[in-house]
């Protein structure tokens, strides 16, 4: 592995970690699509700030972009508050408009700005090592690493200091308000975090991967745990793993790095969806199947117990009667009887079923419970 490759992966991991923290809260607050909106509109902030300072490397660009991110949130709220359109429509109106202005401004100033709309959407992480941060002639590593490292630090500090407020406002906004925490402040604080992170990550990985890294890992982590601290930690780990996995996938396919990382995020989510220990589709599917058999067996036992020692017992205990009575398929009925027999709950001769002692007990337990 060359130093450049290592640097690309380190930058990617830092981006993933920085995105996961605000992303987790965004997802829990059911505002995931705001990450899509903000990651598009920060482009307008970058362009406008560039027109003012005329330097693509100025830190003011981040400030301008973050400000436009907040403007996006505020505009959505203004449109929403008119009551004339619904919130999803408000988001769907505001961010394409702001993004369109940015794209047109860029193409209008194409000669002066070395901003490429494609690069903005797609990002080109492979170039990150070429843009070095030098201080007094000393090479201190890629600029992107410093920028994203700083943003990660901010996110960790803000997330740590305001953890209680964020948690409370996310899970019980009413209680948070009653206790005197301003939900508006928490909302805009989080959106500010999202904006700053989106701008920083934007340059390195492109706006779409920002969305993937903000929402994908937390969504996967959400399937794996019920505890917020563990979910945050898992989000960071999953995001970092996706970043590294995506990098090597891109190398293998000779394809766009950001796109590969997003693809790997999708794979990671599907894996979590299928294999999560308690909520995974595999586990729940197996549980449901087991419950179905168990229920069928209990039904059989209760039926037999009800008619035991009655004149109709002989007729009611015939195996083929189960098919008609319970509307079971012949095959299914056969297998239920078989599994009950295997467990020593019933015995049978040619076509009649008898409860065993333990079967009788099981029927009693099942019908009482």
């Amino acid at each position: 592995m060359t130093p450049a490759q290592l640097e690309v992966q380190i930058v990617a991991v830092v981006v993933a970690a920085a995105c996961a923290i605000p992303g987790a809260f965004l997802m829990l607050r059911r505002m995931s699509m705001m990450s899509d909106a903000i990651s598009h509109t920060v482009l307008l902030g970058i362009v406008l700030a560039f027109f003012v300072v005329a330097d693509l490397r100025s830190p003011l660009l981040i400030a301008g972009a973050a400000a436009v991110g907040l403007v996006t949130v505020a505009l959505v709220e203004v449109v929403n508050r008119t009551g004339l359109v619904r919130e999803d429509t408000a988001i769907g109106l505001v961010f394409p408009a702001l993004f369109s202005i940015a794209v047109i401004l860029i193409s209008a100033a194409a000669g002066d700005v070395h901003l490429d709309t494609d690069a903005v959407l797609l990002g080109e992480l492979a170039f990150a090592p070429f843009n070095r941060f030098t201080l007094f002639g000393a090479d201190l590593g890629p600029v992107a690493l410093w920028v994203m490292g700083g943003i990660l630090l901010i996110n960790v500090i803000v997330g740590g200091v305001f953890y209680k407020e964020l948690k409370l406002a996310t899970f019980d906004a009413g209680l948070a308000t009653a206790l005197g925490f301003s939900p508006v402040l928490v909302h805009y604080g989080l959106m500010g975090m999202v904006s700053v992170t989106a701008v920083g990550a934007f340059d390195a990985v492109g706006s779409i991967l920002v969305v993937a890294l903000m929402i994908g890992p937390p969504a996967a982590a959400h399937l794996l745990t019920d505890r917020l601290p563990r979910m945050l930690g898992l989000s960071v780990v999953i995001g970092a793993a996706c970043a590294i996995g995506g990098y090597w996938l891109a190398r293998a396919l000779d394809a766009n790095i950001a796109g590969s990382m997003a693809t790997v995020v999708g794979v990671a989510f599907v894996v979590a969806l299928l294999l999560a220990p308690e909520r995974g589709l595999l586990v729940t599917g197996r549980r449901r199947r087991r419950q179905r058999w168990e229920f069928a067996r209990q039904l059989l036992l209760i039926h037999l117990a009800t008619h035991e020692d009655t004149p109709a017992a002989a007729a009611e205990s015939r195996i083929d009667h189960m098919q008609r009575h319970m509307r079971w398929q012949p095959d299914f009925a056969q297998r239920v009887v078989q599994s009950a027999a295997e467990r020593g709950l019933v015995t049978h001769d040619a076509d009649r079923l008898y409860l065993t002692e333990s079967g009788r007990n099981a029927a009693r337990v099942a019908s009482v419970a």
Partner: protein
Amino acid sequence: MDVLGDLLFDYTLRTVALGSAVLGIVSGAVGAFAVLRRQALLGDAMSHAALPGVALAFLITGSRTPLVLMIGAALAGWVAALAILGIVRASRVKADAAMALILSVFFGAGLVVLTFIQRQPAAGKAGLDRYLFGQAAALLEVDVITMAAVGAVAVLALLVLWKEFKLLSFNPDFAASLGFPVRRLDVLLTSLLVIAIVVGLKTVGVVLMSAMVVAPGAAARQWTDRLGVMVILSAAIGAASGVAGSVISTTAHTATGPTIVLVATGIVAVSLLFAPRRGLAWARVRAWRRRRLLALETVLADLAALSAQHAHEPDHAHHVAALYAVRGRSIVDRALAALAAQGLARPGAGDTWTLTDRGRDRAARAERPHDAKAGAS
């Protein structure tokens, strides 16, 4: 500059304008339902998700025939919609997160395929990147014909199943209780949305196509409360923004998608502000009128109360200072001017005011609205 002449006789411009009109009509008509059904963001997710479909269709068939790419895009968009629904149904992940996830993952996968294609030496790969932001100037006649044919199918389906879709949009539970296959209708209407998105992809691009299914519907909604009118209006607004935007972009050489979206957003802004009844500007005017009327009634009542203190001398003139004592100066001044204009009060010498007979009547009625009603009945 003779845009009208160019529209008729310039081949490129005519193609572009026709294509954008088709795109606007289809996305406007179908989008109206999306707006009503709160699917604005689903449209966004699906249009981003169409990218891998376009790229894969090209990679597999090696063809750039519009229909092939459209089918690829539609399949990808459709799979994305089903994936979102599936995730929401099968897990605790909410719809917003499912949409953001599918949107970014599909788009990322599309980028992978796209860069993969670009690094191949195959001929004819050019032009696929236009699907990001759209390029109306690249529209060919065959594009427009395909768009029109595919779009016509969607609009026709909308007309044939009008009653069902209407019911589904406004009251799905009632539709289910009447025995309509709500699930299948839901999937079908969402599929029409996919088709509408796909029709516009080459012109507007995957990034902004969602705005074209949202904006015309949102604008049309402000002007009417009737679904039929709304859909027709939405289609017209879509067509108008499509044509205007693409003509501007072709003559000014801006990216087409953003230009069309800005025109459509402008129409939404005008609608939100000035549409009769719902428009914000009219709401302001109504509020201002109400405030003025209230001020007038209040000052009238003040004057009546003052004159009640001089029961034997109804024409007693009251100094305006007495009114200033109980109300704000500007309110009193404006209300007095209005009262005088309506002949309810008249000014006297030295800043004094007296109620006229009509003014006294009106004040008495305002004070005892129930008596007035009883008298009338």
